């Protein structure tokens, strides 16, 4: 008798995910999975020690990512991921601290924490899924919602000017800033890889299709239609002026915007601490 052993098929990336947390909560056509996929690819290609990575998220659809990635992870209160992550990075600078969160979380309720984390140039890597709305609560107007867009709280068309996130990040002091859409998977992965190797505060924005919620009210009812918009409107303009990179129905400027060298806050702080600690010890002895 021939005995056959069946080896279970394990996805090569299984080790990066907490499979017990699956299925994920994301809708069909959502781009969050693409962002998570790019992040996992970047981790795999960089061969980083998973025990030394902390993924921190705020509240929202993409905020659940912290629970899905198989590293140390923390799901904070709404908007506070960066403030929490600041405590982590300062307490243990050897950890790679990655904040994965959404546009509403990072730039409305968490806007103050964002500009100050960038100003300090603390070595936190921020990955933002920008879906132009509040997805989890059913599609309200937010700080990135384009002018005239219809949402459940701007039913007559949005009259608030949206934030241009790459401009805000650059102006606040980030050392690396890039924007891609869920269509630019390879370039997105390259940007994530690049930022993981950089010192200081880094920001990568990914425009994420939200056909179920944002698209529903804005004549892009399927993921394909939203991707169609990204395809037709996206223009790669590397190192162009981020101030001119507003997202409009006709044009989405994508690419890298900032890539500079600057001493990080945690490095400066810990160097200073060592110096003062030495002196204090001399005084005692």
């Amino acid at each position, binding site marked *: 008798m021939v005995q056959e052993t069946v080896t279970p098929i394990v996805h090569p990336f299984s080790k990066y995910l*907490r499979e017990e947390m699956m299925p994920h909560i994301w809708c069909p056509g959502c781009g969050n999975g693409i962002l998570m996929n790019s992040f996992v690819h970047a981790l795999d290609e960089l061969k980083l020690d998973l025990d030394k990575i902390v993924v921190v998220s705020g509240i929202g659809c993409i905020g659940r990512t912290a629970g899905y990635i*198989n590293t140390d*992870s923390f799901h904070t*209160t709404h908007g506070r991921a960066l403030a*929490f992550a600041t*405590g982590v990075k300062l307490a243990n600078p050897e950890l790679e601290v990655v904040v994965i969160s959404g546009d509403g979380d990072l730039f409305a309720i968490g806007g103050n*924490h964002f500009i100050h984390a960038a100003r300090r140039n603390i070595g936190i890597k921020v990955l933002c899924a920008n879906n132009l709305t509040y997805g989890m609560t059913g599609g309200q107007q937010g700080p990135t919602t384009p002018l005239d867009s219809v949402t459940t709280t701007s039913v007559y068309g949005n009259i608030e000017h949206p934030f241009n996130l790459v401009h805000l990040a650059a102006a606040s002091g980030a050392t690396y800033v890039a924007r891609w859409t869920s269509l630019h998977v390879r370039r997105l992965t390259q940007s994530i890889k690049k930022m993981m190797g950089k010192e200081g505060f880094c920001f990568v924005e990914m425009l994420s299709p939200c056909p179920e919620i944002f698209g529903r009210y804005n004549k892009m009812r399927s993921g394909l239609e939203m991707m169609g918009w990204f395809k037709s409107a996206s223009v790669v303009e590397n190192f162009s002026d981020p101030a001119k990179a507003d997202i409009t129905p006709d044009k989405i400027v994508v690419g890298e915007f900032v890539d500079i060298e600057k001493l990080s806050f945690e490095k400066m*702080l810990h160097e*200073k601490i060592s110096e003062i*600690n030495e002196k204090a010890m001399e005084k005692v002895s």
Partner: protein
Amino acid sequence: MMKTRNLPVGPHFMNGDIACAEGAIAVGCRFFAGYPITPATEIAEHLSQRMPELGGIYVQMEDEIASMAAIIGASYSGLKAMTATSGPGFTLMQENIGLAIMTEAPCVIVDVMRGGPSTGQPTMPGQQDVMQAKWGSHGDYGIIALSPSSVQEMFNLTIEAFNLSETYRVPTLLMGDEIVGHMWEKVVIPSGEKIKIVNRKKANGPPEEYMPFRADADLVPPMACFGEGYRFHATGLTHNEHGFPQTSSSEVQTKLVRRLCDKIQMNSDKIIKVEEVMLDDAEVVVVAYGIVARAALSAVRKARENGIKAGLLRLVTLWPFPEKQVARAAQKAKLIVVPEMNCGQMVREVERAAKTTPVVFLSKLGEEPHTPMEILEAIRKGM
């Protein structure tokens, strides 16, 4: 590992805020995040100088919301962490105090109370935040709050607050006031071996078996920190023992929230501290806490000189409330007097515990705490 400078052992003349900062250093706090606010600023100022000397971290955050979030992050990274504030900042911190409760992050929050509501009286003392200490964040939970009456206690109870916080994995509050914060008094800093230091229960065993929110018999789960290889998840959402969100199960919610309450309530005999002065035969008992207890003690002594059998029950622990101690004192007493610098907060708890014993409330707002004569007058009137 950084070398550390010895404690400034011996007698000192210092103010309460500085004593609190030194207490934190003595117990091993090596992370402070804060935002300037009167009358707690001196704690931050002192630690901004002292922390680097000891290899510790001082960071000024953009607001109190961020300060509270940062100390939770530092706590989860293995450091003993603290923040200090006053009323307006304490209110902003409530959101993430809830997160620290839900994720069981040991940390200490100092509230040097001033007059409220809102911006109120920045430079005046108050005791108006004591109910906020218990109920300030939404949801049900157990919390520990201590009330120092002197500069020495700003030092001692900061140490105690850290020890309780590490033992029970709960944010612990030091509810000082503008007077104990700014007053200068003698403080004796004991040598290191005389200071009791408690550290959190660490996770052990293989990481794949670790369940971050599975509690031991004392209802407290052992704690892993980031970077130790446990690769755990923690969330402010209702979660199971694995730390994973399970937000629709009444069983998971009930088990978690009851444990968060019970781990404090069921250990309350070990947590609660009071000071009992001349209570054995006391017919009138003054129940007081914080700076007001100093005037109360003086009033009780004066009453004794006048032949009135008075005693003092000083609440060192405000939360969990010393219910048994109040009930015991009330059983023998004909009258209870509660002086507070608010419109009536802890007095409600005292009334509940005192049952049928009449309670007189002495409210004082705005400037100075009660004088001993004012409390004595209430004792006399009642008897």
